């Protein structure tokens, strides 16, 4: 618990988390506002309210989470941390928990904020959250962010440099996994096992508007909750590798 408080003090005594949070909010909710404003009257759907949160703002959250680690390496405060907590692992886990929790809360705020704004801007659209799939689609954004934060921290610990970690995360999330689908025949089979594709699958609404959703056309072998567990499993596995490396490496 003490170490959680330490990481909370560290995170909130610098400015970048505030900026990243604000940016994620503006981009996530802002995109929904633009989509709602330009869509036909009464044609707004729940799936459309979450494009900003599940795609655009997620990238900002990944960057924020990676920064929480890489700035410590950049300014060598990681060494001060390891002097205070020579076990290293517990300090890094505490950081992961704090950042993932904040990412999760931020995800819920952006998701429900986007949904609420769309409801206000387009009152004639059917935006009621009735089914389990619809709840998952909106409320699941927080879970997605929390798992994404774990993954981003693992990459941050391994790479240690902001530029490198951010490049890897953004290319991986926004380009690489999508481009693999272009490979004839096997592409979509591989995609069914890629972490961010599974993350999208977890949010997918299914039903008639499936084609609107990212990850459409991929033949997933896992259930939607299975996909989230798979995404989380990869994030945790990567974190374990990062923790082992950080413990063995000279600081």
């Amino acid at each position, binding site marked *: 618990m*003490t170490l959680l408080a330490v990481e909370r003090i560290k995170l909130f*005594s*610098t400015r970048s988390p505030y900026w990243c949070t604000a940016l994620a909010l503006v981009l996530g909710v802002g995109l929904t506002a633009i989509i709602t404003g330009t869509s036909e009257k009464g044609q707004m759907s729940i799936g459309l309210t979450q494009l900003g949160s599940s795609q655009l703002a997620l990238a900002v959250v990944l960057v924020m989470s990676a920064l929480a680690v890489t700035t410590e390496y950049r*300014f060598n*405060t990681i060494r001060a941390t390891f*002097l*205070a907590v*020579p076990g290293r692992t517990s*300090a890094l886990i505490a950081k992961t928990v704090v950042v993932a929790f904040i990412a999760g809360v931020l995800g819920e705020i952006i998701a429900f904020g986007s949904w609420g704004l769309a409801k206000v801007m387009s009152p004639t659209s059917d935006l009621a959250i009735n089914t389990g799939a619809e709840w998952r689609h909106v409320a699941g954004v927080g879970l997605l962010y929390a798992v994404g934060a774990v993954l981003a921290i693992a990459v941050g610990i391994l790479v240690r440099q902001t530029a490198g970690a951010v490049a890897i995360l953004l290319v991986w999330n926004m380009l690489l996994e999508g481009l693999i689908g272009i490979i004839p025949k096997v592409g979509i089979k591989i995609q069914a096992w890629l972490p961010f594709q599974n993350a999208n699958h977890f949010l997918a609404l299914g039903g008639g508007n499936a084609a609107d959703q990212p990850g459409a056309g991929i033949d997933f072998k896992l259930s939607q909750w299975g996909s989230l567990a798979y995404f989380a499993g990869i994030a945790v596995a990567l974190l374990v590798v990062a923790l082992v490396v950080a413990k063995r490496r000279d*600081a």
Partner: protein
Amino acid sequence: MIEAIGLTKRYGRTVAVDDLSFTVQPGRVTGFLGPNGAGKSTTMRMILGLDRPTAGRVLIDGKPYTELDRPLRTVGALLDAKWVHPNRSARAHLRWLAKSNGLPDNRVDAVLDAVGLTQVAGKNAGGFSLGMSQRLGIAAALLGDPKVLLFDEPVNGLDPEGILWIRTFMQNLAAEGRTVLVSSHLLSEMALTASELIVIGRGKLITQSSTAEFIDRSTGNSVLVRSPHLFKLGPLLVDKGFTVRDGDDGALSVSGATSDQIGDIAAANGVVLHELSPQRGSLEEAFMQLTGDAVEYHAEIGK
């Protein structure tokens, strides 16, 4: 007490620290001396568990650093004053450190006061001058009121006032019975600060002794004698077995004798003396002689 036993660190084929053994005793300031690149910082990082020794071990009060419970209460270290987030305030920096080792918040105010940073505690550490950063680093080291303190080149780049402040500060800490290890590449600085010296070059131990003994042994004493009757005094001194060489301006440089002995001989033989002065080789020269072979990066002097 700090105890290093056969400490070795290799980076690939480069040996940074080579089978280094020494002890640092409480109650005095111990200087850790060596040219740049001798392995001082690497050794300090190994003492603090940041770097993993390739071989050997180093113990603090009988335990490796990584096995200390809440280590800031036992060991305080200032390795680099710039290990702070530039956009975090000095107080916040100390607060998270204090929290991590279960130290009460009033310790933060106490150490800020001890180093004279209370006025600027709310300012971002990135805007601090080198002297202020150094003070913040010392405040962090003192947080847990530790028995063992390590400072890596603490006076580097400081103005005379800052140097004097740190020197006095470290001596006071040692006088309180703490173990204080200070690294430096400046012998003249260490001569004023430390009472015990550990000298290393190229990662190897050159010597460990008291500072006075080290200086006496390595500077080599000689006495400069000036007299109108040198032709008479010279042979007398040679007869006594002292080494006599011609010095500047027709003076004699005598080694192996004290000025007392030479004065007595001169008086006994009715020789008038115009000058009788003990000469000390410079500390830097002595240091160069000792570590001359052990400098990692050579630059030819005066060529």
